[in-house]
C-alpha cells in the first residue's frame, strides 16, 4: 500500500482523531487559563493562607507527572465517589496541569509591570482592584502572551497522553491504525505531521494575531 493509498484509506480516522485532539486542546486551554488566573493571583496575594493555596497547587501540579495526575482523576477519584467520563478526565488533567505552569506566567507578567505604574495609579486614588484591571493587567497581558504561545503548544502535545485513558484522540487513532496495519512509520508519521500543523498552523499564528491585536489595541510596541 503506498502512502497515498494509506492516507486515502485512513484520512477520515485521522481527521476524527484530530478533531478530538483539537477539542481536548481547546477545553484544556480554557481551563488552564482560568486556573492560571486564579492560582497566579492567589500566589501573589498578601493574605498568607490564600497565597499558600496558590503555592501548594502550583507545586503539586508542576512537581508531579501529568500522566499520574490523569490516572488519579480517572481511576482514583471514582473511589471517592467522583466519576468522570474519559473525555472530561482527559482535558481536566491537561488543563489543571498546564494551568499550574500558566499561573507562573500570570505572576511573571504582572510582576514585570514596573512599580511606578502601581504608584501612579495609587496616587490617582484607584482601588487596588481597579488598578489591576485597568492599569496593571492590560500591560501584564501583553508581556505574557509570547510565553503563553509556547505553553499552549506544550498543552497540545500533552493532550497525547489522554490516549492512555482511551480518549479517541489523534494519538489513540494512530495507535489503532498501527495495530491493525503494522505500518508504524506511516501511522505515527502522519500523527507527527498533524500535530505539527496544529501547532504551527493554528496555535502559533493564532497567538501572534492575538498579540498584534492586543498591541494595537493597547498601542504599545
Amino acid at each position, binding site marked *: 500500500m503506498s502512502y497515498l493509498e494509506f492516507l486515502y484509506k485512513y484520512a477520515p480516522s485521522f481527521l476524527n482523531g484530530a478533531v478530538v485532539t483539537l477539542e481536548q486542546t481547546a477545553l484544556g486551554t480554557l481551563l488552564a487559563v482560568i486556573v492560571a488566573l486564579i492560582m497566579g493571583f492567589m500566589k501573589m496575594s498578601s493574605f498568607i493562607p490564600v497565597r499558600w493555596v496558590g503555592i501548594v497547587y502550583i507545586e503539586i501540579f508542576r512537581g508531579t507527572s501529568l500522566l499520574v495526575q490523569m490516572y488519579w482523576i480517572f481511576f482514583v477519584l471514582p473511589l471517592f465517589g467522583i466519576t468522570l467520563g474519559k473525555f472530561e478526565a482527559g482535558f481536566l488533567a491537561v488543563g489543571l496541569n498546564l494551568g499550574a505552569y500558566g499561573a507562573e506566567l500570570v505572576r511573571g507578567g504582572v510582576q514585570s509591570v514596573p512599580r511606578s505604574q502601581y*504608584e*501612579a*495609579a495609587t*496616587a490617582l486614588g484607584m482601588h487596588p482592584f*481597579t488598578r489591576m484591571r485597568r492599569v496593571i493587567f492590560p500591560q501584564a497581558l*501583553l508581556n505574557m502572551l509570547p510565553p503563553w504561545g509556547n505553553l499552549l503548544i506544550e498543552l497540545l502535545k500533552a493532550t497525547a497522553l489522554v490516549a492512555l485513558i482511551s480518549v479517541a484522540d489523534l494519538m489513540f487513532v494512530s495507535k489503532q491504525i498501527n495495530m491493525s496495519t503494522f505500518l508504524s512509520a506511516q501511522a505515527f508519521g502522519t500523527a507527527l505531521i498533524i500535530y505539527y500543523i496544529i501547532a504551527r498552523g493554528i496555535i502559533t499564528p493564532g497567538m501572534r494575531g492575538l498579540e498584534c491585536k492586543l498591541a494595537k489595541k493597547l*498601542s504599545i510596541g
Partner: protein
Amino acid sequence: MSNESFPLKLEGGDVPMVRFDRVTKQYGDLTVLDSLDLDVKANEMVAIIGPSGSGKTTVLRMLMGLELIDEGVIYVDGQPMTHMEKNGRLVRAGQKYLRRMRSSIGMVFQQFNLFPHMTALQNCMEAPVQVLGLSRKEARERSLELLKLVGLDDKMDQYPARLSGGQQQRVAIARALAMRPKIMLFDEVTSALDPEIVGEVTQVIRKLHDEHSLTMLMVTHQMGFARDISDRVCFFYEGKIAEQGSPEQLFDNPRNERTAMFLSAVLEAD
C-alpha cells in the same frame, strides 16, 4: 505608638493645609526622615532642595500615602491622613480612609509614569471615571480643558510613546489635575528632561501657581526656578529640614553652613 500628644484634628485660626508632626520614616537601620516637622499653608508654594538621599522624595511619597510612616502623624487640611480617629484615639489609617484622603492630593513623578496603553486623553480621563465616578462625557470635557491648559489638546489622541518627555510630563500634570486636588506634589519633574524642554514644563507649573489656588510642594534641583516661584524654600539634610526661609533669605544669606556648601556646589555645577 503613643498618640496622646497628637491631636485628633487641627483646629483654630490658621489650620495648615499640610502638617508633618514629628514624622519618622526608616528603611531598616536607615532613618530617612527624622522626626520631621513641616507646615505648609493653603496656596503656599514650597520648594524642597537638598543633596541626593536627604529624604526629599520620601517626604512627598509619605504625603501621597504611597508608603507608611513609622512614627508621627501627617495632617491634610486639618484631618489626620496617616491615621484616623477611632474611639477618641488615633489609629493607623485604613485603606479606604487613605484613599479618600489621597483624593485631595495629586503627584507628578520624575519619570512621568503615564499609562503606556492609554492615550493622553485616556490617561487624564481614567481616574475621574473610575475613581470619582464621572460620566465619560464629563471626564472628557474636564480632561480636554486641562490638556488645553498644558498646551497639548492637539495631542490628546497620542499614546505616551509618541510624545516627547516634556509633553509626557505635561500630560502627567494634566492627569493629576483632573482629580481636582487641593495639593500638588512635584518630584524633580524636570530632571529626566533635556535642558531645552525643561522650560515647557516649568512654564506650566508657573501658570498653575499664578492662576489656580493650589498648595504645592516641589522637589527641585533648579535653583533659579525655585527662587523665582516659591514662597518658601526648605533645605533638607539627612532627613531633617536643616534650614528654611524665603528664597531671598535662603539663597542670598544662608545661615546654615550645610546650606551654603550645598548651594555653592550646585551653583558651581550649573
